[in-house]
């Protein structure tokens, strides 16, 4: 019997994870995490979630609280209730009105170069 979809990891609202947590697929956090959190898949952080850890993921949507550095390979979306205290490294960033970021944001180099080149072309 085949399984239609790989089951994602869920850290529910009634548990706390402490230590070096590594996931392979998609990870949903609704509870508390402290230490390190990384996944090769997508990360979703719920409104009531509290993360006190360095975070790494392929893509991420954050609606809760993150205290720690965020490294996202592709796209990061911060919803209106997201609170991030830490540095962010990402390729594409979407920030909703109301979200708060306290830290540095580093976007991928070629992206900024492309934007600069476009801007100089427009100025000419």
């Amino acid at each position, binding site marked *: *019997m085949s*399984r239609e979809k790989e*089951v*994602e*990891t*869920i*850290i*529910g*609202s*009634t*548990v*706390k*994870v*402490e*230590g*070096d*947590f*590594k996931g392979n697929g998609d990870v*949903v956090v*609704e*509870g*508390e995490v402290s*230490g390190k959190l990384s996944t090769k898949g997508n990360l979703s952080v*719920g409104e009531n979630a509290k993360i006190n850890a360095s975070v790494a993921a392929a893509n991420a949507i954050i609606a809760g609280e993150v205290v720690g550095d965020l490294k996202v390979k592709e796209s990061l979306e911060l919803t209106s209730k997201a609170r991030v205290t830490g540095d962010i490294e990402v390729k594409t960033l979407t920030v909703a009105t109301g979200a708060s970021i306290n830290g540095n944001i580093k976007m991928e180099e070629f992206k900024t170069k492309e934007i600069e080149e476009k801007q100089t072309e427009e100025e000419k």
Partner: protein
Amino acid sequence: MYQYIYDSFLSNKKYDKELMQIEAKLIDLGIKGKIHKLNVLKNFESYIKGIADKKTGCLVVVGDDRTVAKVLNTLAEKDVVLGIIPIGDRNIIANFFGIPKGGKACETLAARKIEEIDLGKVSGQFFLSSVEVFGEGVSILCNDKYEIKGLPKTEKIGIYNLCLEGPNINIFNPQDEELELISFPKKSKGIFGLKKQNLKKSLIKIKKAKILSSSKTSSVIIDGGKIIKTPVEVSVSLKKLKVVVGKGRKF
């Protein structure tokens, strides 16, 4: 070669007719074998070990879930295929493996479709389905890397190899060499019928875990029956269980 183990409760006369029909069907299908009838006086484990040592190809348990649970630990250590002919009230394990009741179970046995499934190991003994621990304050060290702590709203945390029944049956894969850790939140009651909190379960795949004692809980329940004291180590066993399965199996 087939050998059959009859559980002691089958000595009750109400099962005579059903057993006669099964035995006739086994003869028809050409898979008749030696019958071993258990009774309370026999040392169960050594008896099963003795049967399993005698170059038994397929050891068929005739009974219910408790009968299967009894032979599981011994069979897991031997290179023997487990067959089941379900009789009695509680046959969730047979149902999970797609084995119907009565004569059709004999047909499934004769078809001999064999699957290998994972077994869990907890403090030196095997388990088929689950290790569960109740109460908040539970602490579980997973894969030697991180610790999962049950917050006050945790009802129970279970480590599962497979789920025998219920709506979550498809979450578990007993052939993936992993265990699933699930935390269940307490059912919240809305105040004066107002908003109820919808707390989400946790689902984490693990290879091994150590369930530590807490002030509120000091024991775990294995496969819904046996109770042992914490701390306990839980892992996926390297040994696999070979089982004869039917078309309607749930994995």
